[in-house]
């Protein structure tokens, strides 16, 4: 068999790729979920987050069933809102990005909570400031299958 340099290279790269692919997939799955602090830092880029009236997180005080906890967020003028549940096995919940035709910077949804905890909402404003608000929810039955 007559292999030139190019063919050998191609074969080597293909071989490496098939070995690397399953490994990287496995690495991704076993990586520890990011903590709430890491997620906040990623969202804000290290900027200060002030506790403020600019963002409102509405959640029930007591949720009998953690599988469907209704929440709503409202931050007039914000461009994005990040919602976190730090007490869940994976803290991120959702990230809302409001477009030019958003009628208001607010949204409602239903989320899962594994245990009693403070749910956190962080709003990003176009001027580069961040505001946070949190709401304690008592959960009787956890919602993450545990």
């Amino acid at each position, binding site marked *: 068999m007559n292999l030139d340099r190019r063919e050998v290279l191609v074969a080597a790269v293909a071989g490496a790729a098939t070995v690397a692919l399953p490994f990287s997939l496995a690495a991704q799955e076993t990586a520890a979920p990011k903590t709430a602090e890491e997620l906040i830092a990623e969202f804000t880029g290290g900027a200060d987050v002030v506790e403020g009236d600019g963002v409102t997180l509405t959640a029930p005080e007591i949720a009998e069933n953690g*599988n*469907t*906890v209704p929440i*709503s967020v409202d931050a007039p003028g914000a461009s994005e809102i990040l919602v976190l*549940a730090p007490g*869940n*096995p*994976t803290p*991120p*919940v*959702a*990230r*809302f*990005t*409001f*477009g*030019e*035709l*958003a*009628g*208001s910077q*607010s*949204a*409602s*949804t*239903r*989320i*899962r*909570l*594994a245990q009693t905890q403070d749910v956190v909402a962080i709003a990003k404003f176009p001027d580069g400031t961040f505001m946070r608000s949190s709401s304690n929810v008592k959960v009787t039955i956890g*919602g*993450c*299958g*545990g």
Partner: protein
Amino acid sequence: MADNVKPRVRVPKTAAKDEVVTIKTLISHQMESGQRKGKDGQIIPRSIINRFTVTFNGASVIDVQMEPAISTNPYFEFEARIPEAGEFVFTWYDDDGSVYEDKQSIALA
């Protein structure tokens, strides 16, 4: 494709120019969180809708990045401003690559 995925959207038929309307959406989806264990004790792999977007005549209304903490049958309620008659496009992106879409027209009153 996950089974029985059916998007439902409630949009008013008409609106005044620049009126802000409330939109409610629900899509049936099991939203398997990847935390639950099956009967055999094995963890059921994650299978969720990870993104939901809404546009009106091509302009963005809302774009939601979703995580496993969103409940089964994801529900979203939000508001949109209607500058002209046109069409809403609602799009949900599934982990398995499926894309579900619904369209609703709105006329100026």
